[in-house]
């Protein structure tokens, strides 16, 4: 969780380290227990009452409102006059018949898949690397990982833009000096694809540490004798990975992949701050699209419909996550 990722990837709901998995549970001691006497019957309900009320008021109600607003024509005029104009599914018909909406949706899914795929593969490699490194190097790499993880997403976005700056960016200098051609004054933000590549880089830079450290923690739980045993049986590195490491890490893989999907799909700050959806609206994802239609253009009904599509897609991902957690977290 988040405590793990800001999501623990800091960030917060920003990936911030936040959401999610934080099973920070220290060794769970006695399961919930004890309540001497009957009068203790009401007490737990009184204790959860404030938080339940807060969830209902600040999450349940907004969720109901986004569904309701998606059925309204709500532009600036209606907002100021405080009038309610029900239009049924008109907002949904409008977005579903708009080719731009579909390209944004496909783009968001592809972008999420790219971020999550790269995060998982690279994080696995780094976890294996940590396992192989000597003590000093391992500590150094771990600290570097925590630094990247802890950096606020906002700062990460600013800093990477400076690294990729057209005139004075270090990246252009290094690429030129390393003989990859003349990168002086190369602009990384001219095309949608290149801009997306930088955004992806910013996101995985902060996403990898959480996943890598989690997987590494899982790796250290594998007894050394098992490696020995499997090597005696003649297994090579690939077989060791497939038949020993992979099965042990499976639960961690699944949880971190689910959380990454949920986080990357809705990410706003990094995508927005790099070029505000540009160049030429080519890096607009669903969360930016909802923001632009709603807050910037005051088509709140349409924006709510776009938000509902996001909610629906996230619920789908969440279903798998919850089912998995229910199966594995017996003390939930």
């Amino acid at each position, binding site marked *: 969780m*988040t*405590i793990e990722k*800001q999501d623990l990837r800091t960030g917060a709901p920003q990936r911030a380290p936040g959401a999610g998995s934080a099973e*920070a549970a220290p060794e769970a001691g006695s399961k919930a227990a004890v309540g001497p006497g009957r009068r203790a019957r009401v007490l737990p309900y009184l204790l959860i009452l404030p938080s339940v009320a807060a969830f209902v008021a600040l999450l349940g109600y907004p969720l109901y409102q986004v569904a309701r607003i998606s059925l309204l024509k709500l532009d600036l005029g209606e907002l100021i006059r405080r009038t309610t104009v029900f239009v049924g599914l008109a907002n949904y018909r409008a977005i579903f018949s708009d080719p731009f909406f579909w390209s944004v949706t496909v783009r968001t899914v592809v972008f999420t898949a790219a971020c999550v795929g790269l995060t998982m593969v690279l994080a696995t490699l780094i976890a294996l690397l940590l396992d192989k490194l000597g003590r000093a190097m391992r500590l150094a790499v771990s600290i570097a990982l925590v630094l990247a993880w802890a950096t606020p997403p906002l700062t990460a976005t600013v800093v990477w833009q400076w690294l990729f700056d057209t005139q004075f960016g270090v990246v252009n200098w290094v690429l030129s000096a390393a003989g990859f051609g003349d990168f002086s004054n190369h602009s990384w933000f001219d095309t949608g694809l290149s801009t997306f590549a930088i955004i992806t880089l910013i996101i995985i830079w902060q996403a990898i540490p959480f996943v890598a450290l989690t997987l590494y923690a899982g790796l250290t739980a594998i007894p050394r004798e098992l490696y020995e045993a499997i090597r005696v049986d003649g297994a090579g590195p690939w077989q060791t990975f497939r038949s020993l490491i992979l099965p042990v890490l499976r*639960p961690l893989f699944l949880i971190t992949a689910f959380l990454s999907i949920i986080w990357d799909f809705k990410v706003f700050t990094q995508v927005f701050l790099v070029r505000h959806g540009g160049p030429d609206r080519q890096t607009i994802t669903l969360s930016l699209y909802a923001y632009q239609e709603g807050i910037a253009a005051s088509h709140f009904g349409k924006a709510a419909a776009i938000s509902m599509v996001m909610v629906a897609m*996230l619920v789908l991902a969440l279903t798998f996550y919850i089912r998995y957690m229910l199966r594995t977290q017996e003390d939930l």
Partner: protein
Amino acid sequence: MSRRAARLLTNLAGVAALLFFAFPVYWMFATAFKPTNDILSYTPHWLPVPFTLEHFSTAIHRPNFGYYLRNSLLVTLSAVLLSLLFAVLAALAVGRFNFRGRKAYMLMVLIVQTAPFEALLIPFFIMLRQLDLLNQLPALILIYFIFTMPFTIWTLRGFVMAIPAELEEAAMVDGASRFQAFLRVVFPLLAPGMVATSIFAFVTAWNEFLYAFVMMRDATRFTLPIWLSTFQTAFGTDWGGTMAASSLFTLPVVVFFLIIQRRLVSGLTAGAVKG
């Protein structure tokens, strides 16, 4: 491949990973301390020598910086305290009592941790507007409170469960009331967990950009993330000022993170591996 070659390759990969993750952070701090001439140079100056504090001075002397800092601290700390208060109560309930609906409640907390706040921007905007809370700091406090409460509950529950219930029972046998037993026995043992959890909540609220950007309209209501995001346009390409501001904004977060990091990772796996 020989052993030595393999060792060398592993270490090279380690150096590459080290550079990839640490260099951007280093470069932020280094740039912040470099004179503008060294920053705007076609050949990078790898070390901040000579060294200047001028960019930090520029950054904190920007108009309204005092408001941004005050607002950030006010909003963040209020939200954290509020969510801690609500979460301690809830964590005690689920960590100490077996009651009908306990499992459903924990499931709700788990789901809520993944709530798509990016998709709730529109209803929050409309609701706050109708309550005349747009551009008011209490609105942000409420929002950050609900952002941080779910994982605060989830995490504190673990800490509560790690405290043996026998300790309280013993106190109660000795005549303490349930409340006294909590205050004198559980609370002191729970304090470290509360600190770690609060730091995490603090970082989440401190970093939040989207809601602060959308809901706050006047410069006197902005928080530090807004301050940071306005640099590029306002300064053109004053990378020195931008990096100095980024460094100031990042430093407390990184320090906090290094303190609690170990606990966080081990906590996660403690829960997840058992399946």
